[in-house]
């Protein structure tokens, strides 16, 4: 898009170069997509991904008057077999990232490499092969299942689109196996979604996600609609399935405790940008970005004796509108450290210079000019 401002694209973090695979023909592209990836190797690489939703005015002659910058230049890697958690407040763009990776929305700019293939440029057979390997589990188990279809039809529907995975005769058996895998009685195959509880419905959603043996599952708030006791069951199930089927998860949630529990690495998003990314211990025990610190300190810990010793940072105000984000650092309007520099210079997502040589857990990527370690989770 021509109107894309230069600034956001220039803010390239120093992430590793992507090894692209040049595929001259569709066959080569499909072959590259089908090729296995070693555990710990990057399977999905996102580079400067941007999604702007245009704001238009006028009825007949639509004129673009601005754009909601839902995702504004983010980059990260997802490694094979790991869980990458993405946290952030509502409106920070985390669900848009999920939709972009699923190719449910077309990216305004940027690339998403799946095994070296830029999926934003794929079409036809190659894209279909990618879609088979990236599946999604949705937030709301009540609206993401068609009420007029039986469980068997819902879970079996992916086989209609990708018949090569399960030939017609074997589908019923396959669906029953999937029900068994997610801990539901295989005899429920002819029931309808309304006959199940929220937790059971989410299991159906997971079974549908697993049907095509994908390599990546994108989970958008998979447990936030569930009760506490049921939440634990679903989380445990997801961890079990990850080991069993060697899956990579992109786990999007706003509940920081759950994200810590399930994730190997965590990325914190704010207003369409990645504020900080690192391993779970780096982010939770050694956060360096003020937003992460505020976010973590605001989470109530279920332990009344911990409440006395913890420092709480209470942010003022609300998240600014993504249609008109602040200049420079997007967090500066709510940040207690903000200085002149923050309004003019956009901080890059990189390991802060002062920590580069230290080798401590604070040495992880953080987009702040004044990155500083601060323990907010544990009582002092």
């Amino acid at each position, binding site marked *: 898009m021509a109107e894309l401002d230069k600034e956001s694209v220039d803010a390239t973090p120093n992430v590793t170069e992507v090894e692209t695979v040049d595929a001259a023909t569709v066959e080569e592209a499909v072959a590259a997509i089908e090729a296995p990836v070693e555990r710990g190797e990057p399977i999905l690489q996102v580079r400067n991904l941007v999604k702007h939703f245009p704001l238009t005015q006028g009825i007949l002659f639509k004129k673009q008057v601005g754009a909601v910058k839902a995702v504004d230049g983010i980059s990260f890697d997802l490694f094979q077999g790991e869980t990458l958690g993405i946290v952030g407040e509502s409106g920070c763009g985390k669900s848009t990232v999920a939709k972009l990776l699923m190719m449910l929305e077309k990216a305004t700019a940027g690339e998403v490499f799946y095994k070296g293939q830029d999926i934003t440029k794929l079409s036809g057979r190659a894209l279909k092969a990618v879609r088979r390997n990236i599946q999604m589990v949705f937030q709301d188990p009540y609206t993401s299942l068609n009420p007029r279809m039986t469980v068997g039809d819902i879970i079996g529907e992916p086989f209609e689109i990708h018949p090569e995975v399960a030939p017609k005769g074997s589908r019923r058996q396959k669906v029953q196996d999937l029900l068994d895998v997610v801990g539901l009685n295989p005899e429920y195959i002819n029931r309808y979604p309304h006959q199940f509880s929220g937790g059971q419905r989410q299991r159906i959603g997971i079974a549908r996600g697993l049907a095509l043996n994908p390599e990546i599952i994108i989970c958008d708030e998979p447990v936030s609609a569930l009760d506490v006791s049921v939440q634990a069951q679903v989380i445990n199930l997801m961890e079990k399935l990850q080991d069993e089927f060697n899956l990579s998860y992109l786990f999007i949630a706003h509940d920081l405790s759950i994200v810590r529990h399930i994730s190997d690495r965590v990325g914190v998003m704010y207003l369409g940008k990645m504020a900080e990314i690192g391993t779970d211990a780096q982010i939770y025990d050694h956060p360096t970005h003020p937003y992460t610190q505020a976010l973590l300190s*605001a989470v109530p810990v279920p332990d009344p004796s911990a409440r006395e010793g913890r420092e709480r940072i209470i942010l003022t105000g609300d998240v600014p509108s993504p249609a008109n984000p602040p200049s420079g650092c997007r967090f500066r309007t709510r940040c207690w450290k903000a200085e002149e520099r923050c309004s003019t210079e956009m901080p890059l997502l990189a390991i802060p210079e002062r920590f580069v040589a230290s080798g401590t857990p604070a040495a992880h990527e953080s987009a702040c000019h004044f990155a500083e370690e601060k323990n907010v989770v544990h009582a002092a």
Partner: protein
Amino acid sequence: MTTMEKTANVPAPRSDEDYQGPLLEVRDLHVEFHTREGVAKAVNGVNYTVDAGETLAVLGESGSGKSVTAQAIMGILDMPPGRIPQGEILFRGQDMLTMPENERRKIRGRKVAMIFQDALSSLNPVLTVGYQLGEMFRAHLGMSKKDAKLKAIELMDRVRIPAAKERVNDYPHQFSGGMRQRIMIAMALALEPDLIIADEPTTALDVTVQAQVMDLLAELQREYNMGLILITHDLGVVADVADKIAVMYAGRIVETAPVHELYSRPSHPYTRGLLDSIPRLDQKGQELYAIKGLPPNLTRIPAGCAFNPRCPKAQDICATDIPLLHPVTERDGTDLPGRGSACHFWKETIHG
């Protein structure tokens, strides 16, 4: 604030002056709903008390009857299909269930107010927030529209909505989620009630905003010395603000305890299970403990202890005898004030 004087001018109930007991007392409350599938027993004998300045947290999963109890207290249950077959709700010693409706209207909103979970659907989208806030003053105190609007601005300032004067004529959709919840709080506070019931006040909000709203609520509660019933499923929020906790399951209170005690030594297997099943921010565990099974269908609550099909400690007696809320004591028999457990094996659970 001038509201204070105005409210004080209203003739108080006769027993108000020398009343000594708790602010609110719920005694053996039962609520049932008559549906096509049968009678759903949503609340089955709930007892609790709240004093002025005290925060009672009612903790439970969906369907545990925590919100229905609150609605019964407010007198906003849909009846029918709802029915209150037995029980008493005493506000300053007067039973609200037997008093005439016009008496009750004087208490509702003025003495007992409620904050709802979903601010967007609780506010009227076609009226300005100023008009909706002012309604309390117009309806209860008979103020003029103009005075009511001034009061509304004052209230919006009180809950720290920036630029209250300019925003008083805005509509609910023009406010963010946190601001809308502040408006709900302002509305509940309008007449400086003695008791506020907050039904999941922060569930729909982001954590940073949740912290702001809970802080505001706690501050206002201290200032006005109000009783607060906080209904929630979030064990974290409860740990932060509550004085005492009542844990509900299938329409009954299964455990009561002061806040510190509940977290350090739960005396009911359900509470223990809940505490073990939440991931912690400050530590990384291995597998989460998960309570097996599902909460019961309220039309078919299991015989005996409602939790017995999911309980790891269940014995034969649990499937036949309903456990009452036993007072919980130390191993040597010393009283633990405020503690109770509705489990046949509470001794083993707390001391075992």
